[in-house]
């Protein structure tokens, strides 16, 4: 605990004020507005608002389109998480062997973190386009087998791959850091006992990586709910036939294109609750994170 402090609390107040003002205006106020709007009949651009109670939530929960968007969000979350984490884990385990070229491999796996979601979206939209690029080859060999423009699950596969690609670098960085915090002596001792590379991965590195693993799992799921907007918007616009209409995209479309503020607010509140729950889970794991040292 610190014992030496500066006395002038007015200066402290002046220093923390800017951030407090910003979070009040742009975080807490809008959040409370979202809750308020979700409980009232909100007119676009002002006008009266009458109390609606849970009307909007009830409407949403009985709306098959909403459930459909929940379903595709879950598919997207599961797909990007499994693919993105699986690949990153394999790469991190092998990079951590620190063979020749370790540094080069590491940079090679890190840079995709920097690529903007819309740029990834546009790039993969080209790559998976049925009439230009790689997939046009496939379509030529097997006539018209691939068409994300018309086939829902093709479009979903396409955004899942783009989303997973985007996450690999991030997951890799954390897995590698997790692996490097495993005491070297454990691995050496095990090698002396005659265990091979794979055996050490299975019996030492993977079990000790569990805390990192859960941490990344939660971050990946949360991200897939919130951070998927850029990819969906540049690749599919939620189509075809809403097959990729993720929850976050639906909020945007209903709120800004449909001007249905109350429904968009109710959807925001549901998504917010989801994110808050996930964050709580994450904090619980962080507390238990360090069980070796």
């Amino acid at each position, binding site marked *: 605990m610190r014992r030496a402090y500066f006395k002038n609390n007015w200066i402290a107040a002046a220093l923390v004020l800017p951030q407090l003002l910003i979070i009040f205006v742009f975080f807490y106020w809008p959040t409370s507005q979202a809750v308020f709007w979700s409980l009232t009949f909100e007119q676009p651009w002002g006008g009266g608002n009458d109390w609606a109670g849970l009307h909007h939530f009830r409407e949403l929960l009985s709306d098959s389109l909403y459930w459909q968007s929940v379903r595709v969000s879950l598919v997207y979350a599961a797909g990007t998480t499994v693919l993105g984490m699986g690949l990153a884990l394999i790469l991190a385990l092998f990079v951590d062997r620190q063979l020749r070229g370790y540094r080069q491999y590491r940079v090679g796996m890190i840079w995709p973190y920097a690529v903007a979601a819309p740029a990834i979206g546009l790039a993969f939209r*080209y790559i998976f386009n049925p009439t230009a690029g790689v997939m046009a080859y496939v379509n030529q060999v097997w006539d018209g087998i691939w068409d994300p423009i018309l086939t829902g699950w093709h479009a979903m596969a396409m955004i899942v791959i783009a989303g997973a690609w985007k996450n690999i670098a991030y997951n890799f960085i954390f897995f590698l850091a997790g692996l490097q915090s495993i005491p070297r002596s454990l691995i050496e001792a095990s090698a002396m006992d005659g265990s091979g590379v794979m055996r050490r991965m299975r019996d030492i590195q993977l079990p000790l990586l569990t805390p990192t693993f859960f941490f990344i799992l939660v971050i990946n799921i949360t991200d897939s709910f919130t951070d998927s907007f850029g990819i969906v918007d540049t690749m599919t616009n939620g189509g075809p036939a809403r097959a990729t209409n993720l929850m976050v995209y639906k909020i945007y479309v209903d709120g800004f294109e449909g001007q249905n503020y109350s429904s968009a607010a109710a959807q925001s509140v549901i998504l917010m609750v989801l994110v808050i729950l996930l964050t709580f889970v994450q904090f619980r794991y962080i507390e238990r994170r360090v069980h070796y040292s």
Partner: protein
Amino acid sequence: MTQAELPLATSEILPAPRRRTRRRRPGLVENTPWMNLATHAILISGLLLLLGPIYLVFAAATQTVQEVNQIPPNLSISSHFWENISEAWFSRDFQSKFINSAIVASGVVIGKIVIACITAFGIVFFDHRLRMPIFWLVFITLMLPLEVRIVPTYAVAANALSPFQAILDWTGVSWLINAVSGVELALEWNMLNTYTGLIMPLIATATGTFLYRQFFLTIPDELVEAAKMDGAGPLRFLRDVLVPLSATNMAALATIMFVSGWNQFLWPLLIITDPAHEVVAVELRSLIPNANTTGGGIPKWNVAMAASLLVMLPPIVVVVAMQRWFVRGLISTEK
């Protein structure tokens, strides 16, 4: 200010500049030639997986519009790279959009670092009861990403003073002012289509404040006492001692924040309708118009790919150049 210039008491306690040692843990010495071969094979396929898409994008960016759309497709590199780059650059007015992105990214970087630093300073080095409540208020914003509050945040950007107006109306202060002075109180600050609107909502930073707080907590009490003994006030201490000491922190934060600032998409998409304030990431959206059809004309994939390369480049350069700080910062902010 270097250490030598500092008054006596402070400079004695400042830690000696850390020597940069490259900690490289050598791999185990094992004779596993096949396993090593397999490792390299796996890692090289990983690299191809990550680089492959960029190669395809690059190849497309070097082709003419006929080449890029021809059947059977041609995935080799052609010779029209600079034409496509310049078409993307000029036809889309990328220059001013690049400048806008650079303004937003640097505004976000500077803003976040300053805000994180002063907030953390205010809650670590002063003894007041609100230290923890303030910290938690800032920290909880982690759970409120922009995506879950877009509609009302947009409304706030249209009038950044509306929260205060609402509070004054609700508490009756507006009515009171109106009754006393006859002035109808109408606060307004429209942030739509402005740089302020693009930057300000993004500079609140829970992770940055957290990182700075963690760092400030490691500063020894003696340093504070020494500075006070030397007659330095809090602001002087912040400027001359803490800021130089936190240079690594800043580099780490700056890298992450630059990437996130440059790659902002949803927020600029919402609040910018005026082309003069458009940023490059959003511009990518309109290059190949309709997602569900290939549109009326032949899609100019070559120009679109050249443009997306241009947008990707600056943050990649920053991340690769700042690799060491970046990795460290990322890991310590997310913990």
